[in-house]
């Protein structure tokens, strides 16, 4: 296989090579899982994963079925993301319009920017705000 510099290849070849890559990946995964070299509880085979997925659609795990867990995660995600963009866009617009606001807010951001969002979690956990609002708080951080 020659590695020509950025020469475009035919669409059919792209699809073919992509299929080969995916098959090789799945084959390797299945092979390792089926060989028994790694315990099943450490590495399930792809088909076991699919079966488990189908099972979780209707049967509950950790109290809820998979769609219920997804709905709950999506709800939190939506709240945090929605709050962040609602405030962020408004603040950004105003910072662009009023220079003094930019001058005031930017240093605060520069100070907060390097705190990894996750590092806010302990504060959220010791009960800064109630229930789901805590999670919203950390998702909207910087």
């Amino acid at each position, binding site marked *: 296989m020659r590695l020509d510099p950025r020469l475009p290849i035919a669409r059919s070849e792209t699809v073919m*090579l*992509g299929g080969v890559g*995916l098959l090789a990946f799945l084959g390797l995964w299945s092979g390792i899982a089926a060989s028994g070299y790694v315990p099943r509880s450490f590495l399930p085979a792809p088909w076991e994963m699919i079966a488990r997925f189908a099972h979780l659609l209707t049967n509950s795990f950790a109290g809820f079925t998979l769609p219920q867990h997804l709905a709950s995660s999506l709800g939190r995600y939506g709240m945090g993301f929605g709050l962040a963009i609602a405030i962020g866009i408004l603040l950004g617009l105003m910072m662009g319009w009023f220079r003094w606001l930019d001058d005031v807010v930017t240093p*605060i951001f520069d100070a907060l920017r390097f705190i*990894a969002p996750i*590092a806010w979690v*302990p504060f959220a956990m010791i009960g*800064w705000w109630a229930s789901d609002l805590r999670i919203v708080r950390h998702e909207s951080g910087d």
Partner: protein
Amino acid sequence: MSRRSLIGLATIGVLLATWYVLTMVTGTIDTGRFPSPDDVWLAAKQVVIKGYANGRLHIHILHSLRLVAMGFLFAISLGVPLGLLMGWSSRAEALINPIFLLVRPVPPLAWIPLAILWLGLGDSAKVMVIFFAAFVPTVINTHAGVRNISSPIIEAARMLGTPRAALVLEVLVPAALPSIFTGLRLALQASWTTLVAAELVGAIAGLGRILNVAQQDLYPGMILVAMIWVAILGWSTTRLLEAIEERALPWLVVRR
């Protein structure tokens, strides 16, 4: 001093003063939830001199720095060559991209349970998670960097009969470097975020360990000290990367 930095200093000053007044004078903020400047000072003194959560501050810092360095370096030493290869060869891209697309959307933190299952609660699990966090942005930006080199540059180099090795080292890599560094900066940020999360789950030492123990002890002063140190380390490693970037790209005077 410019107007801008004066306003900046004034803002930070006003914020600190407000913090002092609200926590220590009027008591509007409950110091059980958010620490006063005094609490933070005492916590900082405690962790530096006596130690907290299994060690003194420098032990925790060195531990966290080492994990980030290992995960980050491991990720870029694999990610940059892979990105270069994928950008360079359409065949390699077609072969690898679908697999990469499977890995890419997985948030790095979602690897934590699997990493712990595979590698236990030790350092290698954390390095693995940091690796995934740093690997994805490195590959994406290196790939894009090569893809976006304008074709006439490569065609000219080829027309002049540039040997393959020189084509890679003297044309491809330098032209892709700005984008590669963008990837590295994102990767570094992701590494720190991921490190804190991985250490929060369980660690013997490290800043995440301080955060975790301080949370259980309901010790807001110590939480803030650990957060400040996460920020200091994130900032200084980013500055280090920017210094390397300025040396590596002397022809690009980019002010961000």
